[in-house]
């Protein structure tokens, strides 16, 4: 009896361990090809990607990964030569579960695997602690979606990003909100993550700058589904508008519950909750939502990219795939320019790059932020996100006008 019991316990425990251990990690180990005496015909270049592939925002992580994967596949198909050898790019995707602790672990894993460059991470909360590890190892890392200003304020030479920062996104959405809804009293809520809190801080600052009264900050977590207590409290203060810095998995239930409680305020979200999942999560309550995305909407990205993505993955990009695609291409482009995959050699090329990507012209400023990054404001209409305005350099342009003006260069890009 007891032996059987023991065996079952061991069985259960080992199953649990197996259950925990399944990671979509690419554990293929291939011998590092180094510049040896007989020059090998090909050189293998590993490029890492990190994003959450498990948890509430796994769909966004997969979207990011697809973008980067596509760039790598295209580079392999193009048979690029670096330093006279055939470059074989190897994609190393990792899952950080949107968890800062796991983020640093996988960052170290990529460093140990001797990747030449990294695309990622998706979240600001995981990117910031991981950036220190990449910096120490001297490996360039480009995030396609981390918007917290702190990421590039640490003075790390290896850290870049191709999206706008929260201190650009926050003021954009706040000013648009102030213009359209003309609120007197705004409630600001965040999910207590580096991203949510950072964005909410920027929005609050801009609103206060516009002489709009802001209620004391309310907070949830990145796993909160029950917002009733917070919303009920807000209902008592009767704000005209609500801003939430957080992701769609928590923002959706929030919006639904707010309408259930009879709160009529205008809701506005940042980019993390500006996705097509919103109408599914919040139902009819999603209508009228204002939200912003750093950069241009996926549908405004390069047509060639959109078609290729759809063909490769059978779905449309959700938000950031064009950005991670560009980020991976930037790494490859810099390697081509430097004619080397050695991070120390191609990093200077990356810093001064001027590249036409799927999301437009990309160049970095001294901090590693993208110059002249755009922010798009969307409105949810009948379950669809419709771009309503593009904010660039503090100036807001209606979307139709922007697309009209940008049509010509977009065609050029398609030809190229």
């Amino acid at each position, binding site marked *: *009896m*007891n032996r*059987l*019991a023991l065996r*079952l*316990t061991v069985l*259960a*425990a080992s*199953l*649990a361990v197996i*259950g*925990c251990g*399944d990671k979509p990690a690419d554990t293929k180990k291939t011998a590092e090809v180094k510049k040896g005496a007989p020059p090998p015909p090909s050189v293998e270049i590993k490029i890492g990607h990190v994003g959450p*592939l*498990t*948890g*509430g925002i*796994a*769909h966004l992580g997969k979207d990011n990964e697809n973008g980067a994967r596509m760039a790598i596949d295209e580079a392999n198909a193009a048979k690029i030569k670096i330093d006279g050898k055939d470059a074989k790019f190897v994609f190393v995707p990792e899952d950080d579960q949107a968890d800062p602790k796991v983020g640093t672990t996988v960052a170290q894993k990529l460093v140990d695997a001797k990747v030449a460059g990294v695309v990622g991470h998706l979240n600001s909360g995981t990117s910031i602690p991981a950036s220190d590890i990449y910096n120490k190892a001297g490996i360039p890392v480009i995030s396609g979606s981390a918007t917290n200003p702190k990421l590039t304020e640490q003075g790390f030479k290896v850290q870049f990003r191709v999206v706008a920062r929260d201190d650009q996104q926050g003021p954009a959405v706040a000013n648009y909100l102030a213009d359209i809804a003309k609120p007197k009293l705004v409630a600001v809520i965040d*999910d*207590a993550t580096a991203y949510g809190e950072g964005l909410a801080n920027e929005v609050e600052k801009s609103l206060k700058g516009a002489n709009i*009264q802001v209620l*004391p*900050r*309310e*907070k*949830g*977590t990145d*796993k*909160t*589904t*029950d917002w*009733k*207590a*917070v919303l*009920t*409290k807000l*209902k*008592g203060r009767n704000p005209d508008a609500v801003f939430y810095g957080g992701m769609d*998995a928590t923002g*959706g*239930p929030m919006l*639904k*519950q707010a*309408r*259930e*409680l*009879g709160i009529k305020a205008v809701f506005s979200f940042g980019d993390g909750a500006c996705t097509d*999942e919103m109408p*599914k*999560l*919040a*139902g*009819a309550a999603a209508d009228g939502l204002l939200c912003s995305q750093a950069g241009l909407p996926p549908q405004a990205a390069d047509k060639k990219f959109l078609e290729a993505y759809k063909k490769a993955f059978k779905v449309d990009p959700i938000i950031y795939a064009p950005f991670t695609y560009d980020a991976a291409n930037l790494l490859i482009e810099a390697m081509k320019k430097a004619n080397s995959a050695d991070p120390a050699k191609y990093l200077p090329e990356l810093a001064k790059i001027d590249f036409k990507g799927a999301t437009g012209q990309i160049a970095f400023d001294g901090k590693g932020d993208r110059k002249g990054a755009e922010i798009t404001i969307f409105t949810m209409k009948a379950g669809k996100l419709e771009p309503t305005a593009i904010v660039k350099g503090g100036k807001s342009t209606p979307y139709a006008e922007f697309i009209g003006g940008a049509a010509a260069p977009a065609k050029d890009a398609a030809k190229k």
Partner: protein
Amino acid sequence: MDIFLQQMVNGLTLGAVYAVVALGYTMVYGIIQLINFAHGEVVMIGAMVAFTVINLLAAGGLPPLAVVLVGTACAIPVCMLVSYTVERLAYRPLRRAPRLAPLITAIGASIILQHLAMLVWSRNVLAFPQIIPLKTFSFLGATVTGVQLAILGICAAIMCGLAGLVYRTRLGRSMRATAQNPQVAGLMGVDINRVIAATFVIGAGLAAVAGVMVGTYYGVAQYTMGSILGLKAFAAAVLGGIGNVPGAMVGGLLLGVVEALGAGYIGDITDLCRYGPLARAVGERCADGGHFVLFGSNYQDVFAFVVLILVLVFRPSGLLGERVGDRA
């Protein structure tokens, strides 16, 4: 006042769900002194099965209520089967083992169930189709939705039904006998294994209903939703006195209310700017109507565990549990 009332309504709805889940913990504990940590995952599986069925039927044009009922009707047997299997494979072979062994297999079973659900239903947050039309009622200034009323009503019915089962039926008598002394109950002709299995199965049925309620109330389900819900329901069971059926009901409702009021008011209470001397100490952050909030409503999940610790320190047998102190 209407805000306070609204928080009470929120808390009672939440508490009713905790109570139904807590019943599953407390019934099992009452009979075999096992904390069935896999119970929260059974709730999750109930929500997931209901999600699948409701999603399939949502487009079919059936009345929403019928769709949800069919979803629940499918979730209940699946949960019962899962729970029975766990009991048969993970707990029954360990019935005479030291107390720690089944506790560890319970945690193992919980992890296995969670990851199986991840494989079946993916890692994404699943959005329940929003088919139930939003009906709201005003009650003394508080807004109550139709779903909330349904949850409260169903929970009340479940509690009455369960009390009737435990105190009025033959099976209930066998359960109470087994709880008092399994050996003697066995000698008196009670089939202990059957009674224990029945307890698990009934608890799983309740868990399935709770899962459907949580899913339709919040509109989302995810494979990780069971663990925190299960822990809170466990805290509710301990608060009421684990092993005590009416205790679980009281504990659940109380915990829901504590959580809602706590999350609703903690921000105001810990706003240092409200207290003169402290506000001066904080300085400029309070100037011009500013706020310095120590603990925000993101501490909502903490209340359940603060209550759990307080109960264990000051009244280990719980509010209504008098006979469990020596066993826990």
